[in-house]
C-alpha cells in the first residue's frame, strides 16, 4: 500500500453513510481508514447478526433487503481487496487537532488524519415517561436490534409508545416474528398526522408502505394518546397507564415498553472536532452546521443521520457527497453528484412531512411531574432540574453542573432534549436559548487500563 504520499482520510462509522463515503474515496484511488463500533459493517439499520445466524437479508430487512445486501457486499469486497483499513469493534473516544483516540480490544491508540468524515448515525430520541427508569423499558431501536441481531423479543408482552416511522415499523416486525404486542400508542393525534401528508407525498411509495404497515397493527394502534405512567414491581415493568384520544384511562399490563420519538443525531464527535451547531427548530434538537455537501470546515465532513436525519437512503447519498467534497478540497477529481443532490431535496421534503406528522412531545416533557426521573443514568428528577434552573438560570451547562442532569454515563444522549424543555419552560425562554450540553471526551466510558500498555502510555500512531 503506497499510503505515504496520499492523504490519510479517516471515516468514523460503517453504516450506509460511512460505507458509501469509503467506496467513493476508494474509487478515487485513496485508501481510507474506517473505524466502527460494530463487529461487522452495516450500521444499525442494516445491522448484521453475529456469525452462525441463518436468517436471510429478506427476513432481516424486509423491503430494504436489496439495499442492505448491496452495502454489505460492497464493504466486504473493499476489505477483502485490501482497498481500505477496517477497524471493527472500535470506538473513537476523542478528537483533537488532526488526531483521534481509538478505543479497541488492544487499548487506546492514536490515529492521525488529514481529513475526517464523521458518519456517526443517530439513536432514538426519547422523552421521559414517569417510571421509565424501570427494568424492561427500552428504546424502539433496542427492540428492533434485539429482533434483528439476536432473534429475540425483549419481553413476553410488549407495549410500544412514542411517535414516528419506527413506532409502526417495530410494531409490525415484532408481530410478524411472533411477539405479543399488546398496544402501539402514538402521542401524535390523527389531525396532526394529516398535516404531514403533503410533504410525505414526496415519496409516495414509502408513505403508502407506512400506511400498509400501520393497517397491520389493527386495533392495537391508538393515535393521540396521553402517556401517564409506567407501573413497575420488583422485577420491572408491570403495566402502562395511558389515556386515549377520548380521555378514557387504560391500564395495559405488559412486562416491556419500547419508546421513541423519531431520532436524535449522534453529534459528540462533531462537537469535539470543533463543528458549529445550530438549534434546528424543525428537528427540535441541536445539529452541526455544514454546507449541502457535508463540509463542516477545518477538514471535517459530516454525513448521514449524525447531521441530517433523512434515514438510510439519505445517508447513502450524504456519504457520497461528503467524500466528493473531501476529494474536491484535496484537489483530486471528484464524481459529479447532481442527481444525488436532487434526490436529497426530495428526501428533505419527505423528512419535513415526518417531523410535522410525528412531532417531538415538547408539552409532555414540560409537564413532567416533579418526582419523575429525567436522567436515567443517575435518577435526576424533574424537580431537581427545575430547582437548579430557578437557582442557576437558564444556561444548559449551568443546570447540568448544579443538578447533574446530563452528567451520567450516557453523557446526556437520552435526557438532554427533555431537560432543555424543562429548563425552557421554567425560565420562560426558548430551547435554542437554553443551549446544549458541551461534549466531553471520552465520548464512551473507557477503563483507565486502556490508556496503559505494559505500564506505559502508548504514544504514536499505530494504525
Amino acid at each position: 500500500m503506497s499510503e505515504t504520499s496520499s492523504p490519510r482520510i479517516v471515516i468514523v462509522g460503517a453504516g450506509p453513510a460511512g460505507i458509501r463515503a469509503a467506496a467513493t474515496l476508494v474509487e478515487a484511488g485513496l485508501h481510507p481508514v474506517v473505524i466502527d463500533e460494530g463487529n461487522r459493517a452495516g450500521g444499525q439499520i442494516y445491522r448484521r447478526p453475529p456469525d452462525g445466524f441463518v436468517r436471510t437479508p429478506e427476513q432481516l430487512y424486509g423491503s430494504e433487503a436489496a439495499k442492505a445486501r448491496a452495502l454489505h457486499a460492497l464493504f466486504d469486497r473493499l476489505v477483502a481487496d485490501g482497498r481500505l483499513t477496517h477497524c471493527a469493534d472500535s470506538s473513537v473516544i476523542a478528537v483533537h487537532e488532526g488526531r483521534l483516540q481509538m478505543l479497541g480490544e488492544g487499548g487506546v491508540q492514536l490515529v492521525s488524519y488529514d481529513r475526517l468524515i464523521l458518519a456517526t448515525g443517530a439513536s432514538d430520541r426519547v422523552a421521559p415517561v414517569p417510571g421509565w427508569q424501570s427494568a424492561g423499558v427500552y428504546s424502539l431501536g433496542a427492540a428492533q436490534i434485539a429482533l434483528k441481531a439476536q432473534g429475540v423479543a425483549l419481553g413476553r408482552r410488549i407495549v410500544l409508545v412514542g411517535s414516528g416511522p419506527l413506532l409502526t415499523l417495530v410494531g409490525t416486525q415484532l408481530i410478524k416474528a411472533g411477539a405479543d404486542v399488546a398496544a402501539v400508542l402514538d402521542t401524535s393525534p390523527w389531525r396532526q398526522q394529516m398535516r404531514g401528508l403533503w410533504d410525505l407525498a414526496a415519496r409516495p411509495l414509502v408513505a403508502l408502505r407506512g400506511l400498509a404497515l400501520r393497517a397491520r397493527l389493527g386495533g392495537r394502534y391508538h393515535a393521540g394518546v396521553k402517556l401517564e405512567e409506567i407501573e413497575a414491581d420488583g422485577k420491572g415493568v408491570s403495566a402502562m397507564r395511558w389515556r386515549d384520544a377520548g380521555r378514557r384511562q387504560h391500564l395495559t399490563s405488559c412486562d416491556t415498553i419500547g419508546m421513541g420519538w423519531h431520532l436524535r443525531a449522534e453529534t459528540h464527535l462533531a462537537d469535539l472536532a470543533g463543528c458549529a451547531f445550530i438549534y434546528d427548530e424543525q428537528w427540535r434538537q441541536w445539529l452541526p452546521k455544514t454546507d449541502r455537501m457535508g463540509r463542516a470546515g477545518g477538514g471535517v465532513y459530516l454525513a448521514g443521520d449524525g447531521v441530517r436525519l433523512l434515514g438510510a437512503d439519505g445517508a447513502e447519498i450524504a456519504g457520497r457527497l461528503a467524500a466528493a467534497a473531501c476529494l474536491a478540497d484535496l484537489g483530486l477529481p471528484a464524481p459529479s453528484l447532481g442527481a444525488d443532490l436532487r434526490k436529497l431535496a426530495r428526501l428533505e421534503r419527505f423528512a419535513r412531512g415526518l417531523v410535522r406528522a410525528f412531532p417531538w412531545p415538547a408539552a409532555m416533557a414540560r409537564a413532567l411531574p416533579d418526582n419523575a426521573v429525567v436522567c436515567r443514568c443517575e435518577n435526576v428528577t424533574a424537580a431537581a432540574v427545575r430547582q437548579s434552573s430557578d437557582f442557576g438560570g437558564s444556561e444548559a451547562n449551568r443546570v447540568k453542573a448544579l443538578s447533574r442532569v446530563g452528567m451520567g454515563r450516557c453523557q446526556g444522549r437520552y435526557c438532554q432534549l427533555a431537560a432543555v424543555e424543562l429548563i425552557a419552560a421554567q425560565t420562560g425562554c426558548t430551547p435554542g436559548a437554553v443551549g446544549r450540553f458541551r461534549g466531553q471526551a471520552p465520548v464512551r466510558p473507557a477503563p483507565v487500563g486502556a490508556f496503559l500498555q505494559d505500564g506505559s502510555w502508548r504514544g504514536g500512531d499505530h494504525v
Partner: protein
Amino acid sequence: MITAGRIVRLAERDRAVVHFFLDGEMRGALAGDTVLTAMLASGHALRKSEFGPEPRAGFCLMGACQDCWVWQDEGPRMRACSSLVNPGMRLRTTPPESWP
C-alpha cells in the same frame, strides 16, 4: 432451552449451547448471544441501579446509553449489549468483593 427470563427467543434457536456463570451459578445460553441476551434469557435484570431501588436491564442496545454494564468476577465491567457471551465467562449482578 428453558427460558424463565425476560426475553423470548423467536428465531435462530438452532445454535450451539454455551455455559457461563452468573453470580457463581451455571447458566445456559446460545453461541452468538450477547451477554445481555444470555443474562436475560434466564433472568429479569442485569444489575441494580446505583441511584435508585430499581433493577436495570439495558435500554438502547447500541452501546450509547451505558445502562447495561455488568460486573465480571475478575473485576472489570463490560457492556452487555455489545459483548458476546463466551463459554465459561464469569459474570455478576453485583460488584465483586474486592471492589472498594
